[in-house]
């Protein structure tokens, strides 16, 4: 292979500043590091909200709208889902209304995953194909998560020679471990992932945990998978919120969804509060389960110990990391988890369930089994009551984080691309 720049087309539904969760943060970090290491990366998104300025991405919205009307089909794609089912859950808080002081947030209210997302993924595939026909010199197309599966299938069906790799930030399996009733959309996407992930030329995943899931649950050949441990470009804040006492405050930041283990966390909190009623948990974030989680908090009479902040801006998030003594990761399965790294960067120690991908980078993290509320509550109380041990823990975690090299991790992607090109 010559020394010419590797040219990558990256397909994603999110990329900072357009984001709904970790995917947007990851996409931004990956792209910036790839560019730093000399790759030429073009990022294609299905939609860029008008009020967001983003110079380094292209929107395929116009082409998507054209194909959405035409409804062309992708040969041999076993994917009949058009719409997510409307949620029966009661509406949660209307955060933009509660945030009315923050007019910026009001303007930035958008939905990246509307109900017709499954249908959009197919139109997106045709839009990408047009793009590739006009610019055939990409060395590889990298698709983030399941939304890009139809694109991969269309490329293969039309005989395009450009290789395709998936970058797996999370699977439907991870997203539904805490969900005892799988809906039709979930089952369909899960089936799609199982059928098509292995058809890619290679896969990148964010942790060994995800690698194992891809092998065991999605039948992907192990040699096709490269683990690229996540990292986050995060500059911690200097000051916390003025009026919150740090000592007995613990923190959860994340999407309030089934994947995050919120009910497990609340049951644990009920045990913690029985022993020390002054402990407060801040739940920062929004999500489809927020109303159900709130009801549960009220039912267990924890309304004075569990505080909901809603979605936080970057500045607010940086502040709130400074207001707690312990950060909690209660997920039943978390492909990686960027918030623990942000937390450690901010000087806040983390404890986690055993099923979190970031443990590959921060192995000294105290862990508990998901569903073991006894053990989880014991660890919380232990660290809140042993300041020296807490200090030791954050020192260890900070040291491990300092050894983690994002450039080395991203280097693995470029190596994998080069290897693939050489084999072609």
């Amino acid at each position, binding site marked *: 292979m010559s020394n010419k720049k590797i040219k990558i087309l990256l397909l994603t539904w999110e990329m900072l500043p357009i984001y709904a969760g970790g995917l947007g943060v990851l996409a931004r970090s990956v792209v910036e590091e790839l560019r730093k290491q000399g790759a030429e990366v073009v990022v294609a998104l299905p939609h860029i909200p008008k009020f967001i300025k983003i110079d380094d991405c292209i929107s395929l919205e116009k082409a998507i709208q054209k194909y959405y009307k035409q409804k062309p089909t992708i040969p041999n794609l076993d994917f009949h889902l058009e719409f997510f089912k409307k949620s029966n859950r*009661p*509406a*949660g*808080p*209307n*955060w933009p*209304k*509660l*945030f*009315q*002081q*923050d007019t910026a947030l009001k303007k930035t209210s958008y939905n990246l995953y509307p109900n017709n997302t499954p249908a959009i993924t197919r139109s997106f595939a045709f839009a990408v194909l047009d793009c590739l026909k006009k610019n055939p010199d990409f060395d590889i197309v990298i698709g983030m998560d399941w939304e890009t599966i139809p694109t991969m299938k269309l490329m293969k069906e039309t005989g395009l020679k450009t290789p395709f790799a998936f970058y797996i930030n999370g699977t439907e399996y991870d997203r539904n471990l805490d969900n005892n009733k799988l809906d039709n959309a979930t089952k369909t996407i899960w089936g799609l992932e199982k059928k098509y992930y292995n058809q890619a030329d290679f896969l990148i995943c964010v942790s060994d945990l995800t690698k194992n899931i891809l092998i065991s649950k999605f039948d992907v050949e192990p040699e096709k998978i490269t683990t690229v441990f996540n990292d986050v470009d995060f500059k911690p804040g200097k000051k916390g*919120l*003025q*009026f*919150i006492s740090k000592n007995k405050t613990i923190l959860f930041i994340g999407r309030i969804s089934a994947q995050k283990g919120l009910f497990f966390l609340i049951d644990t909190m009920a045990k913690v509060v029985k022993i020390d009623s002054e402990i407060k948990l801040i739940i920062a974030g929004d999500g489809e389960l*927020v*109303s159900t989680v*709130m*009801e549960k*908090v*009220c*039912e267990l*009479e924890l*309304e*004075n110990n569990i*505080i*909901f*902040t*809603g979605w*936080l801006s970057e500045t*607010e998030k940086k*502040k*709130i990391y400074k207001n707690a003594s312990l950060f909690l990761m209660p997920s039943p399965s978390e492909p990686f988890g960027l918030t623990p790294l942000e937390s450690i960067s901010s000087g806040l120690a983390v404890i986690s369930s055993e099923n979190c991908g970031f443990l590959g980078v921060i192995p000294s993290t105290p862990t508990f089994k998901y569903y073991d509320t006894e053990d989880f509550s014991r660890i919380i109380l232990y660290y809140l009551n042993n300041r020296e041990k807490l200090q030791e823990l954050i020192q260890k975690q900070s040291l491990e984080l300092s050894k983690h090299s994002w450039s080395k991790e991203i280097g693995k992607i470029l190596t994998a691309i080069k290897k693939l090109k050489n084999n072609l």
Partner: protein
Amino acid sequence: MKEAFAATVKFNVLEVYNLNSPIFTIENPQTGFFQEGETNKLFKKLAKKLYIPTLELFLNQEITLNIIVSGNFLEKAAALSPKLINLLKKLISQNLIVLAADGYYGEDYSSVYNSSWWSSSLVRTIDKIKEVLKIDTKFVYLPQLFRNLELERLLEQKKIKHFLLRQKGKKFSKLQSSLSELRRFNGKTVSWINSENDLNCHFNFIPDNLFFNINGNYLQPDLIQASKTFALAVAFNASEYEIKKDTKKLRTATKTLRINEKPVLNLFGHLEKATFRLWEYALRLVLNKYHLEVNEKVSELLDDCCRLQNSDFLMYLDKSNYFLGKNVDNFSSPFEAFVFMQSKVKQVEIIIRNGLV
């Protein structure tokens, strides 16, 4: 002395809250709880579309009923809607209504555990009735029966002997009883009532089907239509009762009435119960401070705290109200209302703990 009617309509000011994100609230604890300007705007709108049309129908149809008013309601009406005050005056002069005083900010959950605040709040309303409507108050609305002390105070100060209470069921009943005859829920008497300060009181128990909160119509999509439906429903129930009352014997409650000393919360959902606990917590914090040092700021905080605990807030926590599909001025889901109240209680806690009053 005029007797109470059976049908009862409650009037109070519907507050517009200062909605901020929880983080903003925590960082700026001295931001106000209410939007006074917006509350006035809403009052004007409700007066025009709901309160006045309803009272006009009562006047035109000569419907007899009890009207419960808060002091704040009369103050706003006097300042913003003279027509509303004139209507009330007409209804009173034509003996169509019995006016009963509510707490100054309406039915206030803090009254359950802060008796001194509640009685002083009632006295403020009684004074406001005198100022605005030029009449002496004879009836007072009790959110619940108390352990006598508050009644006694009121009786002493304002010579009130007649009370309206709300009760479950469909039967209107009356009870004439001395304070010493009231029983605690466990059946025992209240020992501190001696013969010297024992007094005769008249309790009127208004059943649910005859008790109406006019602000409950606020969540209806069409206010004018809602006011018509509401006024007709009140008129129908009131007239039906008045027609039938002569044919059936008025139920008289037992003489030894037992008093629930704790609020009965069984019928409320988790969000409501949690909100009650939060209110109680906030009020305890403020009262602690209030008893340590009384200054203007603490009094204002106590005032705001009680104003926050208005029973009208409960309609925002009722999920069924949102099925009407109307985005109300304050909240668009019960969860949003809950988060709002949780952050306001946190705000009170921060103010107290950080000595900001």
